[in-house]
């Protein structure tokens, strides 16, 4: 496909490593399937995951191949500006998640965060609305990941986009359907470990190339593309836009249902807290390595070559691997990327299946009277249905501009999930009506503002001017969701509000009595 690289051509090392990964992961699935008997096994791996493993799995759930290769590529093309997204979204949201959520959610929840809300607020309408928000988030992330996976597989292996989407969908279904959360967790652990190992090897190769002088890497990049790449460029010139994006990234990434679900896979609050600590170490380390890798690719491969292979820069790191380690290393690296891509929607699938089966089917439609067996069967059906939807969406949205969806999913997580989750844990006067109003406001206002923003009006509908200029609605829809939730709560206070919260506050520390 291109004279400068063997990317996209059949490669023995790639195929061997890829088959090895498939064999190992299927063995794990077989092993996990024999240990998955109850709903607790299927949804939360029997709550037996240790802090270190859970930390790796959380990081694995959170770091997608698209994110890793995308940020690396963006840095290699534009320099410092490419890192801005990585901060809020990838690094700073994790301490926030640890401080605000880890222990309380572990102690209050059964399988999902929807559970926590409906339990604390004693309301089934809260359950339904928060399940809708969760499903909306799961579907948006699935779509984004599927489209990313299809594109990456096409670029890396020369397979067609549709085949790539299909492979990811089918293998994911096998993992989740048979191995449940236990297999998913192990797949994510392996993925995160592979990511760290290969990022470290590649970082080491870059440093070796520059005689182990860290500053020579950035000097090399500055020489190639000018010193401007080492500082902030034109991205985010407006301070309002900067704050709006920043807040939405931090709070949104801290409130993703499939990442929060991992808090229920550990035995206690202490382990939940420690897991996030491990996850932060992994993510901080990878982010720092991405500095070196991005600037290294800019200096060694060069933006022109990177752009000639893929305009968005997604192939910067594989190209860097080829240039520094040769064709065999590229093969292994590409297979690792494939493993990372494969794992990506497994966590989303479990989260979506848990919400459909546990929250909606068992607790809303059947009024909590379903047997364990039925819940498990529904969860498995939900897994297959979700996967078919994910493959279908992936095919429909081939080649579409999905920038609006990135903004929308972040805005929905930050404004429909975050405010109500914080209020339910820390404000004793939140009522069910307040929570429903807050979540609905966050969801609807995010949708409306993204629709009116340049992302849809100009980039997709090709109108001359957007209805509102703001690209990131966080600064409006997050405070609005808080205000609506608070005002509605204040006019719908129950008589036992304070006593009930005292009980919740106690259970946040010592765990639920009737779980």
């Amino acid at each position, binding site marked *: 496909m291109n004279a400068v690289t063997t990317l996209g051509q059949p490669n023995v090392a790639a195929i061997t490593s890829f088959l090895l990964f498939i064999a190992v992961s299927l063995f794990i699935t077989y092993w996990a399937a024999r240990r998955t008997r109850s709903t607790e096994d299927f949804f939360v791996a029997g709550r037996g995951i240790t802090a270190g493993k859970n930390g790796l799995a959380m990081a694995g759930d959170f770091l997608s191949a698209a994110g890793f290769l995308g940020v690396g590529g963006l840095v290699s093309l534009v320099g410092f500006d490419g890192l801005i997204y990585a901060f809020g979204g990838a690094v*700073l949201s994790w301490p926030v998640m640890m401080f605000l959520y880890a222990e309380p959610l572990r102690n209050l929840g059964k399988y999902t965060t929807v559970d926590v809300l409906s339990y604390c607020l004693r309301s089934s309408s809260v359950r339904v609305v928060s399940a809708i928000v969760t499903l909306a988030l799961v579907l948006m992330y699935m779509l984004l990941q599927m489209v990313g996976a299809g594109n990456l597989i096409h670029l890396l292996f020369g397979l067609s986009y549709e085949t790539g989407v299909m492979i990811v969908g089918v293998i994911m279904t096998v993992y989740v359907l048979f191995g449940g959360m236990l297999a998913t967790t192990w797949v994510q652990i392996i993925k995160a470990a592979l990511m760290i190992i290969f990022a470290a090897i590649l970082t080491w190769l870059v440093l070796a190339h520059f005689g182990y002088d860290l500053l020579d890497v950035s000097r090399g990049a500055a020489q190639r593309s000018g010193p401007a790449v080492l500082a902030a460029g034109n991205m985010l010139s407006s301070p309002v836009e900067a704050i709006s994006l920043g807040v939405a990234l931090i709070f949104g990434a801290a409130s993703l249902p499939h990442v929060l679900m991992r808090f229920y896979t550990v035995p206690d609050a202490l382990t939940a807290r420690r897991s996030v600590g491990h996850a932060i170490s992994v993510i901080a380390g990878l982010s720092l390595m991405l500095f070196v890798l991005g600037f290294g690719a800019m200096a060694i491969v060069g933006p022109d070559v990177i752009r000639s292979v893929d305009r968005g820069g997604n192939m910067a790191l594989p190209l860097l691997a080829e240039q520094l380690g040769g064709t065999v290393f590229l093969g292994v690296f590409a297979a690792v990327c494939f493993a990372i891509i494969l794992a990506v929607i497994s966590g989303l699938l479990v989260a979506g299946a848990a919400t459909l089966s546990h929250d909606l089917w068992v607790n809303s439609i059947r009024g909590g009277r379903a047997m364990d067996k039925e819940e498990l069967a529904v969860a498995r059906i939900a897994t297959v249905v979700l996967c078919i939807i994910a493959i279908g969406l992936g095919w429909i949205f081939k080649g579409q501009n999905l920038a609006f969806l990135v903004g929308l999913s972040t805005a929905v997580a930050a404004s429909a999930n975050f405010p109500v989750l914080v209020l339910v844990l820390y404000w004793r006067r939140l009522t069910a009506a307040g929570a429903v109003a807050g979540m609905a406001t966050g969801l609807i206002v995010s949708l409306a503002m993204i629709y009116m923003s340049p992302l849809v009006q100009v980039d997709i509908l090709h109108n001359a001017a957007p209805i509102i200029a703001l690209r990131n609605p966080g600064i409006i829809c997050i405070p609005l969701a808080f205000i609506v939730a608070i005002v509605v709560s204040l006019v719908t206070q129950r008589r036992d509000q304070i006593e009930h919260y005292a009980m919740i506050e106690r259970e946040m520390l010592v765990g639920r009595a009737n779980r």
Partner: protein
Amino acid sequence: MPSEEGLPKRGGKNMTVELPVSSNSGAEGIREIAQQRTRIAFLLTAVVLILYLGFMLLIAFAKPMLSIQVTDGLSLALIFAAAIIVLAWLLAWYYVSWANKHHDTALAAHQRMYRR
């Protein structure tokens, strides 16, 4: 960086939680433990936000300053960016060690005293 040096003192101020022995079910003590954790959690969250928003505002308002190179190849922007990642890690580490040392101990002591 803002309020970094103020942290350990705040965490240490109430490190031994006084358990109200006279209260009938220990509800007062549990409240105190919960509220102390909440205070720390919100304080640290605020620090994260200030760090990040401060950085974003620098990007929006002080681009020339960020492009100053301390030595050849090392701009202030890169230093700040790396520093923020390291600080995020340190804040998390601080919280975990605070909670392990003070929160868990207070909670365990309380549970021993008022076991149901």
